[in-house]
């Protein structure tokens, strides 16, 4: 129901600790934006600034075209779901959900209608007269979501809402949130998470935060297939993308890179003759590394550690002095490959080229 626009937003905590700077972001009505980033990079801080729980040190925040920097949280048209649920422990589920409406002096009929509707959506009807302590974690989280829904906000804010749930419940609740979003296509949602699967499945766009700023904004697949920089390349995807140092030896529609480890990589990223001899890192995802025999291998090495996960097998090659091992990810079970010397190649479309940490694709 509302757009968000962040212009040069910055956050400096008391004592001069700069946490965020130059945050520029346009969020359109109906989008589900996911913030990801390493721990401590300021995801929660940014979300709390949008909520109005932290003041904005610099720049402007607009919600629905109105600058809300100095508007108190309750009047910003937002609702927030906290990681720890933050339910009022002394109130029943019904009172928890109706608190905001009571504060806003809505009529009893209106409150009842809103609460019953939310309870129905979230299947909370049997628990309306219980206290939060008599609910399971998943039920509590649904109450927290219900508390947001009854306020009918323009923007929903979620701060790691699922991280206190166990794995199975997390999947179930994730799907519920996706359905909820589908049922309310016009409401905007901002969602902070550590979980890549949540980010990839829920997001219409992902915002990767790092180094006090935004590393990249894009749809999940853009981030996965075309990372703008090495940070995003390694942050999205698990295990992280392999980075191998080398030098451009052939340019054109396809680029040939001679690698320091001996192999040769061909990438579909186009380059010009001026790039000849440029020091670059190539990036290939472990799942794009395919074993081959008698081929132009990108990498050849001995399998040091092998993790057979059933569905896939992870190969960790000998480091030979490098900081991180090269990793391969093969479908199926290959328990016998440990100790073998394997050659790997990848199709040119799957090979990224980075110079000074930035992708050559985006020049």
């Amino acid at each position, binding site marked *: 129901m509302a757009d968000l626009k962040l212009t040069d937003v910055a956050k400096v905590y008391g004592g001069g600790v700069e946490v965020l700077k130059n945050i520029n972001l346009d969020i359109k009505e109906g989008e589900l934006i996911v913030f990801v980033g390493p721990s401590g990079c300021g995801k929660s801080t940014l979300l709390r600034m949008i909520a109005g*729980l932290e003041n904005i040190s610099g720049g402007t925040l607009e919600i629905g075209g109105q600058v809300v920097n100095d508007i108190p949280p309750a009047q910003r048209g937002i609702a*927030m779901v906290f990681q*720890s649920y*933050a339910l*009022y*422990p002394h109130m029943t589920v019904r009172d928890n959900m109706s608190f905001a409406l009571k504060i806003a002096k809505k009529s009893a009929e209106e409150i009842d209608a809103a609460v019953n509707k939310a309870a129905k959506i979230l299947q909370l009807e049997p628990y309306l007269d219980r206290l939060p302590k008599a609910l399971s974690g998943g039920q509590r989280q649904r109450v927290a979501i219900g508390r947001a829904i009854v306020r009918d906000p323009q923007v929903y804010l979620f701060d790691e809402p699922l991280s206190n749930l166990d794995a199975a419940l997390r999947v179930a609740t994730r799907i519920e949130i996706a359905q909820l979003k589908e049922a309310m296509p016009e409401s905007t949602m901002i969602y902070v998470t550590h979980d890549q699967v949540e980010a990839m499945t829920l997001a219409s766009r992902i915002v990767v935060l790092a180094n006090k700023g935004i590393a990249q904004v894009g749809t999940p697949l853009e981030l996965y297939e075309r990372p703008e920089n090495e940070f995003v390349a390694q942050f999205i995807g698990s295990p992280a993308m392999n980075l191998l140092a080398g030098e451009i030896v052939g340019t054109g529609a396809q680029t040939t890179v001679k690698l320091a480890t001996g192999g040769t990589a061909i990438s579909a990223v186009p380059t010009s003759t001026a790039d000849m001899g440029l020091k670059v890192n190539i990036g290939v995802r472990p799942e794009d590394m395919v074993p081959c025999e008698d081929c132009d291998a990108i990498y050849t090495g001995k399998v040091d550690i092998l993790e057979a996960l059933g569905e896939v097998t992870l190969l960790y090659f000998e480091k030979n002095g490098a900081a991180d091992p090269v990793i391969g990810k093969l479908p199926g079970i290959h328990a016998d490959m440990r100790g073998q010397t394997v050659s790997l190649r990848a199709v040119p479309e799957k090979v990224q080229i980075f110079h000074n940490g930035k992708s050559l694709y985006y020049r």
Partner: protein
Amino acid sequence: MSPALQGLITIFIGVGGCLAYFYGSNIFLDKVLFPAKGIHAGRNINRANMVRPWLFLMPALLALGLYLAYPVVETFRLSLSERLPGGASQYVGFDNYRRMFAEDKFWEAMRNNLLWLLIVPAAATALGLLVAQLTDRIKWGSFAKSLIFMPMAISFVGAAVIFKLIYDARPADQNQIGILNALWLQFDGGFGSVLILRVLPALMFAGFAAVVGYAAYLVGRPIVKPAAHVVEGIALKLLRVVGAVLLSWVAVLSALNVIDSATLAMPYGEQQTWLTIPFWNNFFLMVVLIWIQTGFAMVILSAALRGIPEDTIEAAIIDGANPFQIFFKIKVPQIMNTIVVVWTTITIVVLKVFDIVFAMTNGQWETQVLANYMYDKLFRSNDWGVGSASAMIIMLLVTPILVWNVYNARKEMR
């Protein structure tokens, strides 16, 4: 021998004795009574472990029995008997109680205790909560808190002496040293006096009446118009009726006081002997205990306030609650258990209040309280029967509050 040396020796003997008891009895149990060897080693270890807690508890149980349980029984016996000349005593049934109930001084003490009971715990808890909340976020808050806590370190008698000086009155031709009289003499019946002594109290009484009236309305409303989704038992309904009637009564009383305080003739310019003004002097005495207990309430409630999860408060901010609503609807309900514990703890102190009254008025001018009444009978009139009977009354009053206090404290710990 110097008293300090005596004290030191006592400490050594006491602590050493404790250590020796625990060490010795433990060894006796393990080595002599149930040795962990031979064919019964396993059985002996089990038995020893069953006996051990009792062994360790025994000194405490004995001391409690000797100094608490026995006196209760003995006091009860004394309250049913009368001393005869020559030291013998004789069973008289409930004669002592009957005599006590016929005394005006006893009912005065009961009335005053009730007043203390209503006002001191409420005032001390409310002030403590207020201070705890107000000092929470300011820089010099902990300094303010230590100041307010300091009276806790003063004995009741010491505090009574301090306040006796505050309430002091000298003959008119001498300098007044009591600060209250010094203030009082500033009033001359002019505009300021009217404002502070008539308008302000009238407003306070009116405000108090309004608050209590509203509370009565809140308590009573569900009887007339039950809230949706809430089913109340008959006991709760009865409690509501009683509470509503009581509160309305208090509201009416304070509303009447508005007229009183606006029309009362005031002896301006004359120094007052505060502690001899009947009825009001009770309040001057209560101030002393409130002054002391506010620090206690503040410390406990401040810790409780800090224990409230910050995100429930943030959620309330997002829900649009203003600071008052956050305080009364989010914070106070979450620390209600602690408030009850503080309240009941102070209530118990109040029921036993003795030193302050003893040191300041000794129960004269209608300030008698039960504990001082008991002391009067027991040690001044040597009337053991009535004295013990009043002691039993005090215990009867304290016990239910004590039980409730322990129940709540346990609930809070869980």
